[in-house]
């Protein structure tokens, strides 16, 4: 039904270089890749919606109609009716001025009736017909994604392209939406092309998965087979970097180096520079996608590439996160912390503690109050009630401290923030930012810029760079170095790897683990990702709507959850 041959997306350089894909009716195909792999551009090329300045080459046929080079008029007939696009962000993809019903009615063929809209809403699991009259801001993220799905399905398309449909959603909602997608696809017998960066999602949901790298497909095959025995070193590298929910891994292995630009590797194997198995044949010509067995394709010249990097290595050792001394006074002691924003209760009496040198995971969905808690400890927010003690000092109200105490607190607790694109000042070089931070350390304790960079595994020459010249993972390393410059006893990590690609995430997690181990820094590690918590935290605290619902060692919380909510969280990722 969908067939692309040699699809290229070209701007002032080549961005997508030769994608061959087919999606049959009733089939779910996954397109997996890290940022910059070209998967989103591929999706847009399929519906003729490329950003200005880019054009598609090659052939894209949707049910026999050629899309590449087609007129806008012809494309309008194809979009919505034959091929429909479901986008990532449920917060911006609906028009805030239109009701849910209006979004659906817009693409419904023929006369629209209230019953028909109610029926369409019921199809995506919204049984309350009153939702049709609501505006997007009155709906939750998951509801919006459902409405968007109903709108995308309104024209009864033969093929649905879902571009990261669950990335912006919480774990439990994510699970529901994916199940819904699967159900609708089966009921309608339509084809689905699911674009995602999440290998687990792709393998769980898709009949076939295509792995994209540097603008091309490097491997293709049934999800389960790919997960069990990857045939391309890149796929096995990705799988090796994936943290496991089930057990703590001895070592998280990322892929060295970074993704090259598609035009730089046009004539060779795109992965050659990062591959352990590189041979002369890899750089002589571009290895074509060749069939290996049933339904399997690989662009690797080697036959047994998958064995090079064993996926999910047999590292069942659970000793990795070591608990600090449980006796004596905890490093951080939070007691009955409360904070309200207007009518919304962000924190309703939260208590927890972090021992010296211990890593505590703080798990919760968006709106659970985990970030408010972090900001209270950092002194960026003043809580309404409760107490925060840090190394024997009451820091509940920072303004009440005298300057000497305040200077001490700044050296005790530091933070690594989520978004690598804003965590560094774009106007300052890496060196200047680190020097500034290191000047805040106690006089005898200062660490030089070069040493700080070495600590986080970056070359000293990076001091002269500006954040813009760094990748996301590198920026996050610099942010970690900046936080460590004052030698804090407590490091608060607010979703530090949530915005990073899998291979980079493994590097950063490994780095943070090493810091906890070698420097004895206590950490409060905030995340929504249970697999990440499993790898890093000795103890885990689960937060729901501003209250602690469960607390215990990580293995207890994840393997034998006591609270209903934790059980739902755990089952959503399994």
């Amino acid at each position, binding site marked *: 039904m969908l067939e692309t041959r040699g699809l290229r997306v070209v701007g002032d350089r080549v961005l997508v270089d030769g994608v061959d894909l087919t999606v049959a009716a009733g089939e779910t195909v996954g397109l997996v890749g890290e940022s910059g792999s070209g998967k989103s551009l591929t999706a847009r090329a399929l519906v003729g919606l490329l950003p200005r300045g880019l054009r598609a080459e090659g052939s894209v046929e949707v049910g026999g109609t050629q899309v590449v080079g087609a007129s806008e008029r012809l494309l309008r007939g194809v979009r919505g009716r034959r091929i429909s696009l479901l986008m990532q962000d449920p917060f911006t993809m609906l028009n805030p001025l239109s009701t849910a019903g209006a979004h659906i009615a817009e693409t419904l063929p023929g006369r629209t009736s209230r019953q028909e809209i109610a029926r369409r809403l019921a199809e995506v699991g919204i049984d309350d017909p009153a939702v049709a009259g609501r505006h997007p801001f009155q709906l939750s993220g998951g509801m919006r994604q459902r409405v968007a799905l109903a709108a995308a399905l309104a024209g009864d398309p033969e093929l649905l392209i879902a571009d990261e449909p669950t990335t912006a959603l919480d774990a439990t909602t994510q699970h529901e939406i994916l199940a819904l997608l699967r159900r609708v696809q089966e009921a309608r017998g339509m084809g689905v092309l699911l674009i995602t960066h999440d290998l687990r999602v792709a393998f769980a949901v898709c009949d076939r998965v295509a792995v994209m790298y540097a603008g091309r497909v490097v491997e293709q095959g049934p999800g389960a087979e790919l997960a069990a025995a990857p045939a391309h070193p890149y796929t096995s590298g990705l799988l090796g970097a994936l943290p496991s929910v089930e057990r703590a891994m001895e070592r998280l292995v990322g892929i060295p180096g970074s993704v090259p630009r598609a035009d730089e590797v046009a004539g060779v194997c795109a992965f050659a520079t990062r591959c352990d198995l590189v041979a002369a044949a890899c750089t002589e010509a571009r290895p074509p996608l060749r069939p290996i067995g049933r339904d399997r394709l690989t662009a690797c010249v080697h036959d047994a590439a998958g064995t090079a990097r064993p996926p999910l290595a047999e590292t069942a050792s659970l000793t990795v996160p070591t608990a600090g001394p449980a006796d004596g006074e905890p490093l951080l002691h939070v007691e009955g912390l409360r904070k309200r924003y207007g009518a919304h209760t962000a924190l309703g009496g939260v208590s927890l503690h972090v021992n010296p040198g211990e890593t505590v995971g703080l798990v919760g969905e968006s709106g659970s109050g985990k970030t408010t808690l972090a900001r209270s400890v950092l002194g960026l927010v003043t809580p309404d009630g409760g107490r925060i003690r840090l190394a024997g000092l009451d820091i509940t109200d920072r303004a009440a401290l005298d300057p000497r105490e305040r200077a001490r607190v700044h050296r005790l607790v530091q933070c690594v923030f989520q978004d690598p694109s804003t965590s560094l*000042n*774009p106007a*300052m070089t890496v060196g200047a930012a680190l020097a500034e931070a290191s000047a805040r350390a106690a006089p005898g304790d200062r660490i030089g810029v070069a040493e700080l960079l070495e600590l986080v595994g970056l070359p000293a020459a990076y001091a002269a760079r500006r954040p813009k010249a760094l990748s996301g993972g590198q920026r996050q390393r610099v942010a970690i170095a900046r936080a460590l410059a004052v030698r804090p006893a407590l490091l608060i990590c607010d979703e530090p790897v949530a915005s990073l690609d899998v291979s980079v995430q493994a590097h950063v997690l490994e780095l943070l683990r090493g810091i906890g181990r070698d420097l004895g820094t206590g950490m409060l590690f905030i995340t929504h990702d249970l697999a990440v918590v499993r790898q890093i935290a000795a103890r885990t605290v689960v937060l729901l709507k501003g209250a602690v619902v469960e607390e215990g060692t990580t293995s207890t919380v994840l393997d034998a959850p006591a609270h209903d909510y934790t059980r739902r969280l755990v089952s959503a990722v399994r």
Partner: protein
Amino acid sequence: MPGTVRLGGRARRLRRSRPGPVTLLSGGILALMAAAALFGTWVAPYDPAAQDLALGATMPSWAHWAGTDELGRDVLSRCLAGARSALLWPLVVALGTCAMSTSLGLLAGYRRGWIDAVMMRVVDLLIAMPGLLMLIVLVGVLGGGIGWAVLAMAVLFTPGDIRVVRSLTMAQRELAYAEAARTLGLSRTRIMFRHLLPNIAPTVVAGALLSFVAALVALSGLSFLGIGLPAGTPDWGLMIEENRGLLDLNPWAAVVPAALVTIAATAATLLGDQLFERLSDA
């Protein structure tokens, strides 16, 4: 990131390429005018104040390229010499406005609370006043010196810019790098001027150039109304006023300075636009 917005061709070209023709042209024009402001009196073929009453107003000739005015003064020489006061005072206004609005806007946007509340009410009050009318009345009442005109103008231009700087500061202070700076315990002044200011600089620079343009035009207008500079000073605005009666004898005596004001204002506006795009892209 999935779904990353790629830079369009235009933004990309701007960053990579050397300055475009518009930037070069407007920058060149302003540079020439600045040179005239600095060295105009030396380059001028005649003493801009030298009168030749016997000659009177004449049309352009080889001796006087832009003709002469009623008192037989060379229009070209007066235009060259006039660049100094025509450009200097707007520059003073622009710099003063920029310094005041940037520091007050940063303070209000970063500190918030009562400082912000008080400052914003004053700003509201100033913005509610009819600007040019106030200027004329103020300068008229205060005795009409150029110093007062410049001061009054700076006070009138500042509030709008404060608002812009304040709102940008409020957006920047929420970003992770600013919170990291607070977590490090850096001083407020350091965070405001070392961290936040460089990131709003493109708008500040563009705003300063716009103030320059507004002051250039407004001061020419005041001169035209006879407020500001003393009569007889070589100045573009004043020349338009003094020579507007000569439209039949030598129209160039009024047209040339008027054109200069227009060209300078246009060039500064365009340059501000281009600078903004380049800086915010860098």
